[in-house]
């Protein structure tokens, strides 16, 4: 009991002396507003002092039109008068004379027809009911006079009228109000009516700090109570994961590559030994940019690439077709970040070798959006350039990266890309879905690629995998589109990337 008394807030204290009364009386006696009284009652209920009952009270009130009609009569009443004065006129004329909106006119006409007060023949309206019938008050008019009225006090016939009027525009409305009542528990009864000491300290003030609090006591707070949420600022969760992944690569000695998202077909495809009639180079799969043609790099590399395609270089047979510069100049949105690798390899100075590079950047595919496909997504890319680097080492880097991303189980199977050989597809075991998930490819750049970009003395291991799929498990996301939907509520609720 002592504990409870000490933890009562000021509003609770204020209503305790009046707990033997009902809510309206408490509001009057305590001098608090209704919201405060209801909150205090809720707090007291949490403390087991009382038990509330909530009831809904529904009152029928006049709507905007109803207020007007009560003053100026219902449209059907006014319409009778107009028809009486214009017996035998056709519908349009009556409608025009009435000055009513189409809606109003139709409703009024409907009511009168239903009551058999009028009849319409050959498009002409006349009164068909007797004078005294017409003079009698309609049930709707009687109903409007009763308003406001509590819904529970209505008789069955009134309820039917109410239903009809509700279907018409803003004649009547139902206001509902929550009525709270309560009963005291045993504990409450012992407290009720008690005059409780109100001298407990609420908030600590600078004055108290300066002057001390003497013998006064602090009110005890209920710390289990729910507090309103706050929101701080946040970095988008995909970007948090990217930061982490970047750190994995830099820790392993990789340098970051950056570059443009628009790219010439030359760097995106041709320099990577992708023949010009390859399906990936069609508009079906790739975003081409309208009306812009790009520039090719210096002649030396262009002629090497041309030769690699047409007749082959470094012991290769090539694709055996006539390579077109125009096709290579087409500008696209890069379909992979491997074009960054190609540019990096072509521009690196020999004295800076061996070298390792990575990038995590957006790539684009002309796809429709669905739960597992985006047209704009991240790829994590890496290359190692050295005279002695091999396939098992490629697998080594991949295994290490995915282990750090949280995937202990990883497997490799053969794959095919025009620019790598041997090629490999990486699969990780998705613990959430309990199945193997394809992530994307890797391999050793073909001699045709290496020879055109840097020279045959080097080997280059390379990889590029979709990034979003790697992090869906951590964030428990089932639909990739969710990542870029930017639902603020979800962004606020999202956990941070806490992997170390």
């Amino acid at each position: 009991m002592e504990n409870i008394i000490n933890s009562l807030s000021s509003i609770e204290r204020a209503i305790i002396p009046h707990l033997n009364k009902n809510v309206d009386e408490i509001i009057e006696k305590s001098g608090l507003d209704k919201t405060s009284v209801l909150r205090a009652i809720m707090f007291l209920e949490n403390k087991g002092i009382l038990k509330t009952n909530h009831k809904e009270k529904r009152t029928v009130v006049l709507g905007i039109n109803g207020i007007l009609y009560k003053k100026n009569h219902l449209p059907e009443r006014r319409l009778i008068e107009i028809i009486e004065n214009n017996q035998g006129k056709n519908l349009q004329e009556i409608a025009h004379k009435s000055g009513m909106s189409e809606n109003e006119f139709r409703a009024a006409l409907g009511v009168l027809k239903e009551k058999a007060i009028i009849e319409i023949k050959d498009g002409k309206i006349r009164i068909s009911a007797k004078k005294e019938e017409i003079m009698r008050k309609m049930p709707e008019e009687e109903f409007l006079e009763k308003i406001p009225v509590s819904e529970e006090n209505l008789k069955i016939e009134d309820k039917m009228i109410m239903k009809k009027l509700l279907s018409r525009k803003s004649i009547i409305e139902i206001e509902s109000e929550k009525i709270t009542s309560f009963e005291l528990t045993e504990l409450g009864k012992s407290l009720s009516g008690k005059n409780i000491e109100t001298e407990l300290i609420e908030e600590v003030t600078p004055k108290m700090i300066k002057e001390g609090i003497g013998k006064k006591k602090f009110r005890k707070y209920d710390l289990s109570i729910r507090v309103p949420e706050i929101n701080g600022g946040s970095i988008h969760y995909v970007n948090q994961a990217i930061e982490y992944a970047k750190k994995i690569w830099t820790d392993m000695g990789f340098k970051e590559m950056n570059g443009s998202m628009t790219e010439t077909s030359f760097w995106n495809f041709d320099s990577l030994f992708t023949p010009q009639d390859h399906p990936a180079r069609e508009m079906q799969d790739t975003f081409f940019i309208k009306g812009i043609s790009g520039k090719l790099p210096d002649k030396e590399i262009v002629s090497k690439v041309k030769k690699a395609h047409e007749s082959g270089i470094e012991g290769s047979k090539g694709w055996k077709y006539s390579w077109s510069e125009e096709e290579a100049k087409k500008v696209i949105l890069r379909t992979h970040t491997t074009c960054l690798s190609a540019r990096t390899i072509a521009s690196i100075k020999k004295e800076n070798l061996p070298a390792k590079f990575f990038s995590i950047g957006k790539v684009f595919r002309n796809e429709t959006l669905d739960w597992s496909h985006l047209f704009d997504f991240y790829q994590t890319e890496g290359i190692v350039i050295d005279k002695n680097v091999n396939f098992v080492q490629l697998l080594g880097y991949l295994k290490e990266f995915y282990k750090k991303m949280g995937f202990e189980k990883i497997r490799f199977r053969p794959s095919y890309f025009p620019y790598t050989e041997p090629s490999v597809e990486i699969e990780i075991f998705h613990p959430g879905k309990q199945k193997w998930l394809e992530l994307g490819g890797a391999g050793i750049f073909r001699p045709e690629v290496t020879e055109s970009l840097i020279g045959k003395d080097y080997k280059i291991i390379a990889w590029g995998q979709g990034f979003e799929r790697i992090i869906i498990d951590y964030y428990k996301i089932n639909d990739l589109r969710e990542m870029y939907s930017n639902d603020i509520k979800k962004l606020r609720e999202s956990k941070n990337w806490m992997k170390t």
Partner: protein
Amino acid sequence: MANITFPRKEFESEIKITNEIEKKINLFGTPLEFMNNEEINIEVFPNRPDLYTIQGYLRALKAFIGKEKGLKKYNINKPEKDYKVYVEKQVKDIRGHTACAIVKGLKLNNINIKELMNAQEKLSSTLGRNRKKMGLGLYPLEKIKFPITYTAKNSKEIKYIALGLNEEHTAEEILKIHPTGRKYGHLLENHKMYPVFIDKNKKIMSMPPIVNSEETGRITTNTDELFIECTGTEKSSVEKALIIMTTTLADMGGKIYPMEIIDHEKYNTPDFTTQKTKISLSNVENTIGVKLNEKQVGELLSRMGHSYKSGIVESPAWRTDILHEIDLIEDITIALGYDQLSPSIPKISTVGEESRNSILKRKMSSIIAEIEFDEISTYHLIKQGEEEYFKNKDIIELLDSKTEYKFLRNNLITPMIRILSENKDVEYPHKLFEIGKVFSKNLQKETGVEEEEHLILAISPSNTTTIKQNIDYIFRKINIKYSIKENNFPNLIDGRCAEIIVNNKQVGYFGEVHPNFLKNVGIKMPLAIAEINLENIYDKIN
């Protein structure tokens, strides 16, 4: 990539599918996609069209699992008189290449006819790039009088009963009414003359690559001898398809007879001459990272259908994907088994480093998040209609986008407006930011496109004072001075927006968004915006 379905029963008559075999199928580089009692579905990469038929696939898999290793050879019988195709010059520029063959002694049933049709379709769509590079046709031999001619005729002179139709039609009509005519007609549209095969009696056999004639081109279960033609724009694809098709038929029990092609030179097709490639053991070891002796290399190559002798690999004619020694090294790796390799990280000492732009972007983001902005991340593409918000003649359009996103954004306010509008019922205040690239035309650039990093701040509900306080804070933290110059901007309230100037250069703008615009885009709370080009700012930061 192609998904290929084989009947399971036929598959299992050669190789029983156990867990071990399932694993082998995956490790062979043909992932098993789906399997039930009737069917087995695998994925085949485009470099191996020889695996598109069940015969070709089983041939390769039997070698891989060690059941029938080594180079498989097929016999070609002696050519018969009149098995000749005359290629006339008028077809050269339209669809200039053909390769043909005859196969006898077949026992066709409805199942293997269906398989042949599937194989024909698969080869034409993938290797043949939807019949453009190559298409192929099969005919019962008995209806054809040899020698035959491959030529081109004026489209108006071509008239025959197309397969599946009841009466004669002209070429143009066939392109309009026949299903394959509608599908592939575009391949001929730009030509006045269309390719045709004509037999000795001047009967039109087909109009490649569209459709055979009903009279000479319908295969039934009574057919035991076939004529096969491949045509196309690329010689090697045409010949490769014929090799794949004839070896498949040979595996069905057929006997292959060559056709003499009389072009500007005379030669026989199909040509099963094997390819020889040099291989070096040290290249094998240096590429894979596993030491192998000569005997092991020979064994592994035989499991991929090759034969090996003293540094030379002999590969079957259908493996035209082998362009270089490296392709054989991959075959050796596959035969070795990707699951058998031990991944290891080499000791290559290099210094890791994030790029300066990345670091600055990250630091900017964290400064802004500190003052309670939530970062959003939007697509670089904007929707049709959105390009109208802030009219800009330099906006870049994409060709044939499959979605409503058809332009590259040239500012960050456009996607921000969309996100705010989509979140109009989420609890306020909204404080959002994004850092990302925007695009505009600039023909000086290599790709004709300028890409610049922008920052956008949006606060709602808000006003110019608040947005300016936030801009002040950010510039203070990055230690850069800025000034402002009053100016009007589209969709912002005149007199309540201004340019942001750094070193006498406009780097951005801020202001209150006009309520008329907010209403149009479905935003219901007041909004203040600032957008800053970071390229100029990054240069100044030190």
